[in-house]
């Protein structure tokens, strides 16, 4: 009789978590579509509200796309922990022998793959609609690629703090938006610097540094916040 060998090492447990999170997230397509639709609609409001002069649009494009991406990420954060909290699997996560730090990191990664990455892929189209000059496209995409995971990680701290509270939507915004400002400033600044013809590798490095800082430190805060919310 053979016994099935289930490996319980860190890598395999994280892979299993990643697979599970992606499966659950992809089951309801709303998880992908809603943030994306918000992104597109909100960006479209600017030419509708402020006039469609391409020169003006091109100037505000970096800021508009970045701010809207930030808001879209923040609005999508609710789906990270809420359903797990409600059905008790969040408690199981805290009780499991697997280190919380890595489990949380993988959860946020899965969440970003489903909600953040589509935004990055949609951004060039929106940039075209806002008449962004050609030099801005690559910095925009690279910046969003580096910046949206950071925004997800910071948003996860806020979500972890508020998951146990009812009607926490605006509180989440009040907590998370100020903390996201550095990413916004450097991300939009990267595009503007490129539009001015200056090199952007330094700014990309700063965004990368912020991502590294967030991915190493925020799981600690998220774990602490989850423990507070669940007890």
């Amino acid at each position, binding site marked *: 009789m053979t016994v099935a060998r289930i490996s319980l090492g860190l890598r395999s447990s994280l892979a299993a978590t990643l697979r599970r999170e992606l499966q659950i997230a992809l089951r309801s397509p709303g998880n992908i579509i809603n943030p994306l639709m918000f992104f597109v609609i909100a960006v479209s409001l600017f030419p509708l509200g402020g006039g469609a002069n391409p020169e003006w649009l091109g100037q505000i494009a970096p800021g508009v796309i970045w701010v809207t991406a930030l808001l879209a990420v923040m609005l999508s954060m609710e789906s990270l922990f809420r359903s797990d909290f409600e059905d008790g699997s969040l408690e199981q996560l805290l009780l499991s022998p697997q280190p919380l730090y890595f489990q949380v990191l993988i959860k946020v990664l899965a969440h970003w793959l489903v909600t953040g990455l589509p935004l990055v892929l949609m951004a060039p189209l929106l940039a075209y609609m806002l008449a962004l000059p050609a030099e801005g496209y690559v910095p925009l995409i690279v910046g969003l690629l580096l910046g949206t995971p950071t925004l997800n990680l910071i948003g996860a701290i806020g979500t972890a703090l508020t998951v146990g509270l009812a009607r926490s939507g605006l509180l989440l915004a009040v907590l998370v938006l100020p903390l996201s400002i550095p990413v916004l*400033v450097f991300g939009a600044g990267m595009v503007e610097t490129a539009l001015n013809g200056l090199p952007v590798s330094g700014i990309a490095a700063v965004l990368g540094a912020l991502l590294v800082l967030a991915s190493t430190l925020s799981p600690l805060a998220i774990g602490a916040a989850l423990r507070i919310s669940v007890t």
Partner: protein
Amino acid sequence: MLQWLYKLGSPRHFYEMTTGFIPWLSGITFFLLIVGVVWGLAFSPPDYQMGDNYRIIYIHVPTAIGAMGAFMMLACMAAMYMIWNLKMADMVARSIVPLGAWLCVLCLLTGSLWGKPTWGTYWIWDARLTSTLILLFIYVGMMALRNAYDSETAGAKAASVLALVGVINVVIIYKSVEWWNTLHQGASELSASDVGTNPPEIWIPAFFTGFAVIGLFFLMLILRTRNEILRSEQRTQWVQDLLKQELEEVATDA
């Protein structure tokens, strides 16, 4: 010295020790305040370019330092609470937040009132004012977060997490806004050194008002923390005895 600090960690000792502090702390603080304000308003030479409105910096600069310093102290208290479960640290932290918010508001208001006659505008997106505005948002958010929880302990822990996350962020925010200003080249730096080619004597009253604001901060902090102690330790014997004593005093007075 260490024993003294250690004693401060107990609510009862904190309360009893600070009862003695308050009179002489008030005395020193008001002395510094009056010297600083009178000197700054009346005896400091007027600025070559700005005339007399630069005298606002005697309030603006100390409140800016105070708002940031208060946040650093808040982060220390939060760390002490999370690591060693020191309830006293959380009570102090809770009292710091409204004071820090007040200092931010003062800094922004006085900054605006200085900016208008000097640079022609009430608001400017320079690094200092913008970071202070965001700091105000974080202070307010912290109060909202603490109050959103039904359980007081959970609210205290959540506020501590936010404080620790915020303190890392505040430094980054300041630097990022500074960098953003070099990018946009539109905002002129509301730098205190813009006071220009002036004799260093104008900074002497600033020392007085600076220390006065610090003293005021600690005075207000102590007063608020004492109330917090009374409220949260109401079930203990020493607070009950204190209340009875106050009742008797009122009765004998009346």
